[in-house]
């Protein structure tokens, strides 16, 4: 027993010693930051956005940081191996950028208590695992305001991926914006059950255009819906990154995500030793959500109104999910003056008035 205590004490002592050494080393040397990506860095969507954030962090912090990334890492057992390898290689801070990395991240984090982890779009945290995500829906509300002014047929087509709260939030926020400027307009949603299938995304956009939609919005990752809109002579909103090059005439704007500031802040917090496991859900106010450039087709007063809404969202004087909000069936879902909590937004499984069709449950 005595020897065991002695052994534990020695181990603890050496661990503490090692920790203090690494702390001093950190203060003098640069930190190593690792990124795990689910797609290739050139996917023109999700992973591309994260990699732009990584580059911005490198640019802002200069030689204080060093960054490595591993791309196209499948979610699951392979992810755990990659994350563990990054931790073993002495990375001080690791970003795992896809929902499916949640459990592998927590597992590896347990084995490397000194390494800081931040996991995107997850909901499980621990002492050294923080989470982060973006309030895409804020940007989608702004695109809705524009859509209401630009539609002639009063039918907007929406290419959806999976009927999960993240996507439903976007549809509802978009529809609220749309009906704010055009109470007669409706949104038709088509689910393709995939995040990334260019051909299917295009077919869905074409099916919607055939049914009278003159603006296409999307919550899928490829620019195929924007291309379809361009070919058919209708309008579109992109997503994730600026997709205007895929449809210069069609692309009106889009809700973009911008990780650069967040990555820089987190790396700085590790540099000055103030990192804690936080849950960040950033929107327009934090600069995490931005708008793609507005197409010249949009009249100046519409752009002004959209920019005003964007500014009001940033200052907090405009809250998107604030009552009165009418549900699809006409009943009052949120009473006047009541704001939905983050928890309620994160579990959203109902449509607002103006969305057509039934939400698959």
């Amino acid at each position, binding site marked *: 027993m005595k020897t065991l205590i002695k052994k534990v004490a020695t181990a603890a002592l050496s661990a503490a010693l090692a920790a203090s050494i690494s702390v001093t080393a950190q203060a003098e040397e640069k930190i190593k930051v690792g990124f795990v990506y689910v797609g290739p860095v050139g996917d023109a969507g999700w992973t591309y956005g994260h990699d732009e954030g990584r580059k911005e962090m490198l640019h802002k912090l200069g030689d204080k940081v060093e960054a490595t990334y591993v791309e196209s890492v499948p979610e699951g057992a392979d992810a755990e191996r990659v994350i563990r390898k990054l931790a073993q290689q002495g990375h001080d801070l690791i970003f795992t950028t896809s929902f499916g990395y949640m459990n592998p991240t927590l597992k590896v984090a347990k084995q490397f208590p000194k390494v800081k982890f931040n996991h995107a779009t997850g909901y499980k945290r621990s002492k050294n695992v923080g989470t982060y995500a973006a309030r895409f829906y804020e940007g989608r509300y702004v695109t809705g305001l524009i859509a209401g002014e630009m539609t002639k047929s009063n039918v907007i087509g929406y290419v959806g991926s999976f009927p999960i709260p993240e996507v439903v939030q976007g549809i509802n926020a978009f529809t609220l914006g749309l009906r704010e400027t055009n109470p007669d307009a409706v949104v038709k949603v088509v689910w393709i059950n995939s995040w*990334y299938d260019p051909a299917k995304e295009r077919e869905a956009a074409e099916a919607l255009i055939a049914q009278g939609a003159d603006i296409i919005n999307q919550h899928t990752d490829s620019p195929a819906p924007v291309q379809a809109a361009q070919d058919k002579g209708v309008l579109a909103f992109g997503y994730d990154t600026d997709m205007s090059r895929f449809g210069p005439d069609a692309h009106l704007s889009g809700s973009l995500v911008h990780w650069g500031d967040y990555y820089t802040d987190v790396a700085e917090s590790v540099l000055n030793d103030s990192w804690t496991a936080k849950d960040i859900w950033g929107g327009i106010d934090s600069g995490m959500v931005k708008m793609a450039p507005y197409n010249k087709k949009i009249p100046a007063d519409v752009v002004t109104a959209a920019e005003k809404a964007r500014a009001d969202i940033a200052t907090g004087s405009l809250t998107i999910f604030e009552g009165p909000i009418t549900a699809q069936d006409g009943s009052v879902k949120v009473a006047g003056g009541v704001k939905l909590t983050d928890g309620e937004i994160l579990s959203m499984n109902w449509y607002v008035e103006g969305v057509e069709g039934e939400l698959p449950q």
Partner: protein
Amino acid sequence: MDIELITNVLFAMVRSGTPLLLVALGEVVCEKSGVLNLGQEGMMLMGAVTGFIVSFSTGNLALGVIAGMAAGIAMSVLFGALALGLRANQVATGLALTIFGAGLSAFVGTAYVGKPLTGIEALHIPLLADIPVLGPVLFQQDPLVYIALMILAAVWLFFRFSRPGLMVKAIGENPESATALGLPVLTVRWLAVMFGGAMAGLGGAYLSLAYTPLWAEGMTAGRGWIALSLVVFASWRIGRVLLGAWLFGLASIMHLVLQGMGWSISSNLLATLPYLATIVVLVILSSNASRIRMMAPVSLGKPFHPST
């Protein structure tokens, strides 16, 4: 459903059926000669990526289409070397080709992801394009759709009326007897395999140059497999390949159209329709043992040893 919507749906059906038609035509010729190539998905992806890279670099779409076909042929030569030359197991070789093609296309295409390209544009055929309904559906498509239909007609005529067509069928049915008759079994099989490769490459190039003019890793999304099941669905009949390709195309469009119309059928269920249809056909075909023997080339998938 008004007439305009029906026209739009039928137009989309022909378009989305075209890559399936091309790939299935290639495979049906290959299988009629007795060779089963499961590498369609890999050959398609190589065709898609090569076609895109060449078109993007040269700005010439026709060159991209040819390069896509060439890439498909190159992949099929690899398959032929293993399955015909070394008499490796065709199923295993085909599967390996699919995995290899998926990986290699992702590797060579990395720098081209997210690059915009003006794709192949529609070509209205004078006079015919003005026919109501039929005009917009069949004669306002892009040139590759017309080419696909011409290839279909050529393959049908080939098997129906030509001596070489009969030769391919004879070799697929009984390579030993064909050898005894002095028919060049291996040469014919090589040509059939390469034709299959060219068609798969063309089908892939159709996706990356006409249907959705962009390159994305794994962009065929299982269409090579649908084309394979289409061959069984068509029970190796050329005419039925067209019927099947359009039916499969329609099924993949309809589940999107019906959602837009507010039908509350699960979109997951509707998306399974092409596969359900194939299973039903397989069940019907195999309910009668002699019927399936009549349909499938007898030597399908069996390596050929000239000595035995």
